[in-house]
């Protein structure tokens, strides 16, 4: 059901939501606007899918195809369950949800999680037989359970424990020896498994197989000896493992970052949104004693059109809460003195900053550049955009040279649900599994269901390649041609004409220019005029920041850095941006920071760039501030403060407002509420489009370079989370085995990657998924020992694509 239908059918709901404390999502300019205008009782059209069933003597309405367990729950007859999970297929394993169901042939005990409602069905969840069955099963479930609740992480929030207390038998009659297993065993770097506590509900294993598509954990052995396990020596190294911990109905799966950190009854929680990437997964943030201790995925029901993540999170988003309390946090303002960066007071730091900006602006508004803003809230971005407007600063960009032109946002926008319901998804972008992992899960589910066909254009292959209808591995530099060629194929044309098309568009390769992607997308839209676009820019709130006004007005990040390198920038403001580590062109970033007269860094963590700055203002990070964020769909959802800010850090918006005051500008907003109210929805962009360069000049470097992200890298929130930092693979170059063999190098040996700009040494790895003649390196990988170099050293951001050659390291 689209949010629009929802607004029509259940207006009271939608109005309530919009009017409540703002913690429900607002889908840009539709549902709520419509709902708000409805003030009389609306005409409710009869739902053709409605059926009438009787639950415990009451006639209620249910939806055809809905399972009895959920129909009952919606009608206040909660049926206990363990294996049922609304986002996975039903298996009917635990038998806890058995109730008597009569479809005309007399009451029969049936698992309500597997039986769809039918008209006239009579359900009795409280009959003697139902109760007898449920009580019996609870006793059996507890028979082999270790009952170690006092030392169990799940104690206090455990459905098994709750049920045992509420209607379990008082004592166990099971006097035999219980099953014993070594407890707990690590099944990955992040997850422990206690098989004694496991009730074999198949949730984790189903998740791994069905949802994540990686059956790395599985039932082993049979009958009473059945257990969950991994293959020996093949850990559960899934990007989504944390979800299994969350959905485990007992304490069998625990996550190392949370183990023994708190008891559930000490936790406070608030609903928020993950801003690690731009999918905008809904979360609940749990804290105790003013420390964030975990994030849980939040499953907001489809009815509200908010089901972004279906309750799932990726492990990076789930476990990087550790970074909130990391040692690298900045707690007080710093200014550069002869002794290096030195702590100072906010008032002195602000007055220095205002002075620097004031004098730079006096020399012309082009002498100031603002890079960043994607890590903050919409309110942060809006305040900074207004400040830039007031000062006439056009050199601003929320992307850091790793995206695609912001004009992508002017194309008709698709939601994730739209993409999942489309007949065709055209994917021109990165491997979503690595960059926007939960979007990958959603799209994968659509593909698996058989509803949706994927046509992907990728230099490397992706997590969706196996299920793709067409997977076109293109040579960087030739994206637009490849897409055009493919569009002229009659099968492809027929497929595009077969139903709704959603183009999922992002930056496939950081060593290849971004504007080409926009050209390619436009080519698809020209061929499928009804197509809508889901822009998969990656940084947390990049869409919100761009729409709030931090899209380039005169010069994107590349242009700003070039200007800085040329000495044209007097003050370079970095809003949570770290070009020294994050911009694809390391040399340009270095020259820019050296060339800018002054650098002001506003950041939550000490970063490479803040270390090189003249003024460092400590910023509040997610979890420490409230506001809103906007995801790839244009969906605006709240982020909430849960813990006190670290040291004297402040949210970015507050800094902007104070600077405006000091510079004598009235931004028209004076507090967070003003800002939230002023956050624009789907603002359109002035075009500052840099045309894509077309031809790639010939070179004598024979291998085309592909650089893209993997889930774990040296990004600050990952690096500052001890549980995740170790998971980054480190530098390396993947080469087609034949190319590697031609060089006489074996997988694992060091090689020198040489480009026109310079060279770096890193280990080579054979990978036959690559096309011959292309090589791939993961972005932002750091070797802590400093032996292996950073691939960004050979990237020229102004090139159409980048070529390298490999040399044997003697």
């Amino acid at each position, binding site marked *: 059901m689209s949010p629009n239908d929802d607004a029509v059918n259940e207006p009271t709901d939608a109005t309530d939501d919009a009017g409540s404390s703002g913690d429900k999502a607002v889908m840009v300019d539709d549902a709520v606007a419509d709902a708000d205008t409805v003030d009389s009782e609306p005409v409710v059209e009869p739902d053709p899918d409605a059926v009438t069933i009787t639950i415990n003597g009451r006639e209620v309405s249910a939806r055809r195809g809905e399972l009895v367990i959920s129909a009952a729950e919606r009608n206040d007859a909660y049926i206990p369950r363990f294996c049922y999970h609304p986002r996975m297929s039903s298996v009917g394993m635990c038998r806890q949800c058995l109730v008597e169901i009569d479809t005309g042939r007399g009451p029969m005990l049936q698992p309500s999680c597997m039986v769809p409602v039918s008209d006239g069905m009579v359900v009795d969840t409280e009959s003697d037989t139902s109760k007898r069955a449920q009580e019996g099963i609870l006793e059996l479930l507890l028979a082999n359970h270790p009952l170690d609740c006092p030392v169990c992480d799940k104690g206090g929030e455990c459905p098994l424990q709750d049920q045992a207390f509420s209607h379990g038998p008082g004592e166990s009659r099971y006097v035999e020896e219980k099953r014993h297993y070594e407890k707990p065993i690590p099944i990955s770097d992040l997850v422990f498994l206690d098989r004694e506590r496991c009730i074999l509900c198949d949730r984790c294993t189903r998740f791994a*197989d069905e949802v994540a598509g*990686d*059956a*790395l*954990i*599985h*039932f*082993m*052995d*049979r009958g009473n000896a059945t257990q969950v*396990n*991994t*293959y*020996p*020596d*093949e850990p559960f190294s899934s990007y989504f493992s944390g979800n299994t911990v969350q959905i485990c109905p007992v304490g069998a799966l625990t996550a190392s970052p949370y183990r023994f950190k708190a008891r559930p009854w000490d936790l406070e929680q608030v609903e928020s949104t993950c801003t690690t990437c731009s999918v905008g997964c809904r979360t609940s943030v749990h804290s105790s004693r003013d420390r964030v201790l975990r994030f849980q995925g939040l499953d907001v029901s489809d009815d509200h059109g908010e089901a972004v993540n279906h309750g799932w999170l990726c492990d990076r988003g789930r476990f990087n809460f550790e970074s909130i309390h990391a040692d690298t946090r900045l707690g007080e303002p710093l200014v550069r003195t002869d002794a290096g960066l030195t702590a100072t007071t906010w008032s002195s730091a602000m007055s220095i900053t205002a002075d620097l900006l004031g004098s730079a602006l006096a020399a012309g508004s082009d002498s100031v550049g603002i890079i960043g803003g994607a890590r903050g809230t919409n309110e942060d971005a809006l305040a900074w955009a207004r400040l830039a407007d007031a000062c006439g600063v056009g050199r601003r960009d929320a992307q850091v040279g790793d995206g695609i032109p912001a004009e992508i946002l002017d194309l008709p926008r698709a939601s994730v649900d739209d993409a999942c319901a489309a007949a065709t998804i055209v994917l021109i972008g990165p491997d979503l599994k690595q960059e926007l992992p939960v979007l990958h899960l959603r799209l994968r589910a659509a593909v698996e269901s058989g509803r949706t066909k994927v046509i992907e254009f990728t230099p490397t292959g992706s997590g969706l390649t196996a299920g793709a209808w067409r997977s076109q591995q293109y040579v960087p530099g030739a994206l637009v041609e490849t897409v055009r060629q493919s569009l002229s194929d009659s099968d492809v044309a027929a497929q595009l004409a077969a139903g709704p098309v959603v183009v999922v568009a992002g930056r496939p390769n950081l060593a290849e220019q971004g504007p080409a992607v926009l050209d390619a997308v436009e080519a698809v839209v020209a061929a499928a005029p009804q197509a809508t676009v889901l822009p998969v820019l990656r940084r947390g709130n990049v869409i919100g920041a761009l729409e709030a006004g931090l899209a380039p007005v005169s010069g994107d990040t590349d242009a700003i850095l070039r200007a800085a390198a040329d000495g044209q920038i007097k003050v370079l403001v970095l809003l949570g941006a770290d070009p020294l580590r994050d911009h694809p062109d390391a040399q340009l970033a270095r020259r820019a920071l050296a060339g800018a007269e002054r650098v002001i860094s506003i950041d939550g963590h000490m970063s490479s760039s803040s270390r090189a700055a003249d003024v460092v203002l400590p910023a509040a990070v997610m979890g420490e501030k409230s506001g809103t964020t906007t995801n790839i769909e244009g969906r605006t959802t709240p982020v909430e403060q849960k813990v006190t800010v670290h040291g004297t850090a402040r949210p970015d918006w507050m800094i902007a407002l104070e600077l405006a005051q000091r510079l004598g500008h009235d931004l028209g907003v004076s507090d967070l509420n003003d800002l939230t109210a002023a956050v624009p929805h789907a603002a359109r962009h002035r075009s500052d489009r840099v045309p894509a360069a077309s031809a790639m000049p010939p070179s004598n470097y024979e291998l085309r370079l592909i650089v893209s992200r993997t889930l774990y890298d040296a990004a600050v929130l990952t690096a500052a989370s001890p549980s995740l930092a170790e998971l980054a693979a480190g530098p390396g170059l993947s080469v087609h085995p034949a190319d590697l063999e031609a060089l006489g190098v074996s997988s694992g040996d060091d090689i020198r990657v040489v480009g026109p700009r310079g060279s770096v040494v890193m280990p080579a790895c054979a990978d036959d998924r690559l096309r011959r003649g292309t090589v791939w390196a993961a972005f932002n990988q750091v070797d802590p020992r400093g032996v292996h170099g950073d691939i960004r050293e050979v990237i020229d951001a102004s090139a159409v694509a980048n070529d390298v050659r490999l040399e044997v390291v003697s």
Partner: protein
Amino acid sequence: MARLTPDNTTLAHEIIARYPKPKSALIPLLHLAQEQDGYVTDEAMRHIAELVGVTPAEVRGTGTFYEMFQFEPVGRYLINICGTMSCALMGADDLMHAAEETLGVHAGGTTDDGMFTLHRAECQAACTEAPCLQVNYRYRFRATPDDVRTLIDDLRAGRLDGEIPPHGTLARTRQHIPADRGVGAVDPDDVAGPPAWVTVDADTSQGAS
């Protein structure tokens, strides 16, 4: 060793091709691995995972469900003494005692020389011939404790080598579908209509309607 040999890999491909979906060949391939090495090795499971396109965990998950697959080395002869109802009524316990005594191991154990592994088994579908047992899945019917002792002697002396192959070998005659006779398996997703012979007389011959 331990991955499937080249010959067995060829056979594996032949077996996989018989099924509309490769994963269906998982159990037959586990048998093949067990025949090759006497038990199913970790390397063989990895190889099978590659061959049928699943994770090794799935191969192990399926394999460990089934009684016959051994994941540790067992004796050359696996003696399964049935202990279910009919055999129990007819003296299965006596057979087990005789075997345990003769072999010097308890049910579940393997003799030091690696010749014999003794298991208590469930119903072997020979209830009218109780009590019965199997050696490497070859039956012995209406057995007495003396029979068990003689059997073990004979096996040890190699007198039954022709009749009873080493553990892991099941049927020695395999199915082979000649290329010119087989219809071939088709992925159900690629099947659009009824089988060719049904369309011969389309309106009447769709028997199942």
